[in-house]
Each structure stands twice: as structure tokens, then as C-alpha cells.
């Protein structure tokens, strides 16, 4: 299997689905980048080059550069989805999503429900999230908990390039609106990715490590850090199960509860702010259904309740890292370890 970056994996998923289904279109700011300007149309291929090369294959009719008006083109995409296309809209930074909450929360997420199941909205919104890019507080947030909160939306957090390709193909084939979160610090990370198309089902967590002492549940970019922490801890005799839920909505409650119950010790790792995030949600779920199995409190490793700092030194401190995850596990497992 060839090694591919997260960026290549997303690009390949888009290309293969556009080849397979002519209803799939791309739209967003600079997804081609040169429309209506002198020079080549595919001048940018997305702000970080993720959609590069698609406009020359599929043309300007299927790769649409939009004005810098998120409320307009997200609304347009939702309408196009409701009327027969399968748009993949790119909303550069999730931080900018606020200006189109009505289009997402009140329109796209509600069509199926409000029309008695007779309308489908096969819309994908790809968006970048996360800290570590030195892009300051308005370009570095996580915000996936906000979308997870809304019934009618599906929310996807791919943790590596293999996951990104399979989950994006599933997102495009899905008949409901999907918010697809790409961590901007992961675009150059490579793993083995098949050339063929494949879909990874939503709501099926991936157990990336199996151990006896502690269960680490991690989201998005945090999965790799949790794996590293588990590998380090393994050398000192503490073995961990690591769970990547893949999608926060739908959520694979069964795997989370089973793996939590098996070890009785749980650490949840979430890059989002600590209040009302995925860590609190998972902790509440486990407390309600597996309280009797727990050997200690559920530990949450998260960013602090503060904006993402622009200072590189502070930003590095802000992001949950491998040492913090290891420390949480060690504390939970007690002095015996």
C-alpha cells in the first residue's frame, strides 16, 4: 500500500467520488483559486492546496470558486443538496462558521425532520480546525462540540490519512449533512492509504490499541498522541486501550462503554475547550452506564478554557500533549505503577 499524506488522501477521495458520481461538486473560497482572474484557474487549489488538480479534471462547472461570503455559499450548498446535487463545500476555518449557523443549524440540519423524512440533504462541509498552526485565536479553534450538539448533523474527525479518505467517501455518499473536520496540522502526515475507493462507516469506533489498565478515548489529532502515550506507558508495564470514535455524531456508545468497563479507568483526550466538549460528554455517558465498573475518577485531558494563544511558546503549552496524557494515566493507575 502506498504512503500518502492526509492532504493527498482528502484530494483522492474527492477525485474518486467526483469520477464516480457527476452530482458531486466542490465549492468554496479558492478551491480552484483563479476563477475570473488572469492566469490559471487552478491557481490555489484550496488555501492549503488540498483541492489542487481537481479543477483541471472536472472544470469550473464542478469546482466553484465562491465569493468571500460564507453565509451565501453554505446556504447555496444546502439548497443544492436539497434539490439533487451532492455538494462538498469548503469552509476554510471552522472559526468562520458562525456567520452561517442559520443555514446549517436551522436549515440543512432540519430539512429531513421538517419535511417528514421526504427531503434529503447530502451536503458535506469540509473545514479546518485545531491549534498548532501559529494562526492565532480566530483560526485555531476546535468547535466540533457545537455541531455534535445539533440533531440532524453528522460530525466526523478523521485521525490520519487512511481514515480521512474512507470517512470522506462515506460522508459524500451519506444522505445527511456532514461536517468534516480536517486538522490543519496533520496535512503532511503520511500513512498507508489504498489507491482503491473505500468507505468507513459512521458510528463505528476504531480500537487502535488494546490493553488492560486504562482506556484512553481520543478525538481527531489527539488519537495519534494517545497512541504514542500508550506505547510509552507500555514500556513501563501500563497497558492501555485506545479508542478513536471517528465520528462524534453518530457516536459509537457500545465500544466506548465496553472498553471503559473492561479496564475501569478512563482518560478522555479532547483538544476542544473543557466546558461542554466531547470529554465531558463521554465522561457523563460512562458515569451513567458504567459507574459500577469504574476504579477511579474519569480524567479529562483538554485545552484550557482560554483562547488559543498566538505566542508559539504558549500555544505549545495550550495543546494537550503526550506527557499530559501519560501523566493522567499514571495518576489514575496509582502508585503501584
Amino acid at each position, binding site marked *: 500500500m502506498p504512503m500518502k499524506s492526509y492532504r493527498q488522501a482528502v484530494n483522492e477521495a474527492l477525485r474518486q467520488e467526483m469520477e464516480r458520481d457527476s452530482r458531486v461538486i466542490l465549492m468554496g473560497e479558492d478551491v480552484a483559486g483563479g476563477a475570473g482572474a488572469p492566469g490559471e484557474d487552478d491557481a490555489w487549489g484550496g488555501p492549503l492546496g488540498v483541492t489542487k488538480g481537481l479543477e483541471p479534471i472536472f472544470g469550473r462547472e464542478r469546482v466553484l470558486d465562491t465569493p468571500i461570503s460564507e453565509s451565501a455559499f453554505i446556504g447555496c450548498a444546502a439548497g443544492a443538496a436539497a434539490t439533487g446535487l451532492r455538494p462538498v463545500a469548503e469552509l476554510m476555518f471552522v472559526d468562520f462558521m458562525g456567520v452561517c449557523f442559520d443555514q446549517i443549524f436551522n436549515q440543512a440540519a432540519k430539512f429531513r425532520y421538517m419535511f417528514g423524512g421526504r427531503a434529503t440533504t447530502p451536503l458535506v462541509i469540509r473545514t479546518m480546525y485545531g491549534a498548532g498552526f501559529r494562526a492565532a485565536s480566530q483560526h485555531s479553534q476546535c468547535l466540533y462540540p457545537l455541531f455534535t450538539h445539533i440533531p440532524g448533523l453528522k460530525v466526523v474527525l478523521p485521525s490520519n490519512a487512511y481514515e480521512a479518505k474512507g470517512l470522506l467517501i462515506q460522508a459524500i455518499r451519506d444522505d445527511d449533512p456532514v461536517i468534516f473536520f480536517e486538522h490543519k496540522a496533520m496535512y503532511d502526515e503520511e500513512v498507508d492509504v*489504498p489507491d482503491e475507493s473505500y468507505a468507513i462507516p459512521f458510528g463505528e469506533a476504531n480500537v487502535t490499541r488494546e490493553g488492560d489498565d486504562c482506556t484512553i478515548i481520543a478525538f481527531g489529532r489527539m488519537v495519534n498522541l494517545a497512541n504514542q502515550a500508550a506505547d510509552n506507558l507500555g514500556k513501563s508495564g501500563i497497558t492501555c486501550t485506545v479508542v478513536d470514535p471517528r465520528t462524534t455524531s453518530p457516536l459509537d456508545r457500545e465500544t466506548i462503554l465496553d472498553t471503559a468497563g473492561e479496564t475501569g479507568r478512563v482518560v478522555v483526550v479532547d483538544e476542544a475547550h473543557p466546558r461542554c466538549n466531547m470529554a465531558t460528554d463521554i465522561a457523563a455517558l460512562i458515569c451513567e452506564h458504567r459507574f459500577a465498573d469504574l476504579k477511579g475518577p474519569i480524567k479529562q485531558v483538554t485545552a484550557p478554557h482560554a483562547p488559543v494563544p498566538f505566542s508559539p511558546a504558549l500555544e505549545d503549552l495550550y495543546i494537550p500533549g503526550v506527557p499530559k496524557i501519560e501523566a493522567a494515566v499514571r495518576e489514575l493507575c496509582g502508585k503501584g505503577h
Partner: protein
Amino acid sequence: MSAIQNIVMPKWGLAMQEGLVAAWHVPVDAVLEAGQDLLDIETSKIANVYESPVSGHLRRIVVAAGETVPVGALLGVCAPASVSDTEIDAHVKAFQDSFDWDGAKADTGPEPETAETTAGRLRFLRMGDGDGPSMLFLHGFGGDLNTWLFNQEVVAQSGRTIALDLPGHGGSTKDVGPGDLVTLAGAVMALMDHLSLPSAHLVGHSMGGATALLVALERPDRVASLTLLAPGGFGPAINMDYINGFIAEKRAKKLRAVLELLVADPTAITAEMVEEVIKVKRLDGVDAALKTLRDGLFPGGTQAIDLRDRLAALLCPVRVIWGRRDRILPASQADGVPASIRVTLLDAAGHMPHMESAATVNALLQEVMT
């Protein structure tokens, strides 16, 4: 100095660049028989016992348990007592000095090829060189050319080998037609035509065994010999819990229990192997192809084609190898075959003798090639 024999890190599969010596089963100074359990090796994908490729007196263990070294690195040295310790030290030093430690890791080895044939797109892997007929490997239901990771490279030392992905599997077309043996046999013939092979030694496992058998019956002029490992086509019985479970189970935990049916020792099934199978099953078209093959090959829960009555008509040398602990196809299906067919039953193996008793199977395959 030719009395000194090297034992080196084997290459198990395309992706393997290095391996961890997890444990030695024998102490230094042990007298080895070829095929006996020698050491446990772990790679990023697989963990298995490495059976001794040589017979002789193990004079040195060069890589201790716990160390990771590249493919081809010297693990140990065998030599008779007549070779002095000084000579062995010199031999080891010469090997280590000339070994390309960086190059060994970077070398990814042969890559699979794909060809558009009359049977559609087929992926195959060629290894080895020689003048005699090629040995063509055909995997079983749900497998692919990587099934032969313990065998192909070894046999390739004796001649040309080709491992094929049958339709519906690996990197080959997902179009399996009506899902019958004729379609699969047609793909084998299409590849042989594409590569201009007048004839070949066919090695088939399970469904691939039935496929090889059909090719040999229909086109005896194109088959130099048959080696059938736990082959289909020898009777109606098949464990449909395995076939149905393999298709249905998408989650690691449940799929692992299904895959454990394949082997005598369930610990041979690693988490990585389960994950690889899940990844293959997710590829577009695989699920439909496997279901079509199931319905075509095993309608009503038994094997559709029984070739047993035609075994006597086979003209080429035939060997059947079966694990006595096979839980997919019972080894008793090898009972009562015509006397011209040589039958080898392996005590320690389940349905995967080429993996579970690789050294024994490899010796039989090399015999065919020489």
C-alpha cells in the same frame, strides 16, 4: 568455509523492512533440524514462529531477543564442530562489515504488477528467475497474494514464481461474473496467456486449490504439476460459519473470532492481521464480490462442484497437503484419493498449512521446482 550456514532475517510480505527477534526457541550450541521452531519474529503486521531453514549445529546467536534488525541481517550461524570459533568470528565480522544496513531497510523488494487481461484487471507479484515452468500461487476465499508471504520468496530461490490475486480479491477486478470456479479458472488461464506461460506448476489453497484443480482437468497441457493445500472440490462439506462470518463481521473483535477458525493456534491471528482484513473488506466492490462467490461456490451451504470423481483423470504429478486440525474443510476429504496422488497430512496445522507449517510446505514446493 562453505560449511558455515547463515540464518538471516526473512522477508515476510511486501511491506516488511525489519523484524524484531521476540524470542529464540533454542539455546546456542543446539543441533537444529530444518523445519523446527527456531525463533519468534514480530513485524509491524505479523508475528510468527520462524522455522529453521537449515539443519546443523547452531554455533552463534548474533541477534539476541529484543533486538530489531533489517531484512537480510544475520541472526545466527550454523557450522559443524570442525569449524573453529575463530573462523566463525571472522565469518560473522565479514558478514556484518559487508551488510548494507541502510540499503537493506530502504529496499522495498519486488512490487506487484497489474495487467489488463481477457479476464479483466489482474494483479500479480513475480519473484525469482529460471528456465523451468513458473510456479503460480492461487490464494483462498478472502485472501490475496500476500497469503504466500512465508513461501513465495523462499521458493523463488529455486525458480520463477508468480502469486495472483484472483477476481474479487486484492488488487484484481471485482467482477467475479456468476461467482463460479469457471470464472476463477478463466482468470488463471488469462494471466498465463498474458504472460505467455506455456505451462506452470500450480499451487492452490482452499478455493484456489479447487481453481487449480479445475484448470488441470480442463487444460492438462498447461499444468506441469499440482500442489493443493486444504483444497476445495474434494467433497461437499465446508464450514459456512467461517464464510458467512468472514463476510458479515465488520468489527475487529467479532471478525477475530471468525479468523481464528483458520488456524490451529488462535494466537497466530494478530490485531494487525484482523485490521488488514477489515481494510480489504471496505474496498468498493469487495463485499458484493465475496457474496457472489459464496452464492456461486457454496449454494445451500455445501460446495457446488465436487471434482473428486475426476481426480483419477489427472495426468500431472499431484500432491495434496492438509492440516489435521483444519476447521474449514475437514482433512478427511483427503481420504481415499487415487494412489497416484501423494497426500501429506500435517499434525500441527489448521486450514493454513503454508503459514502454520511453512518450512515443511516450502520444502515440498522446492522439491517440485528442482
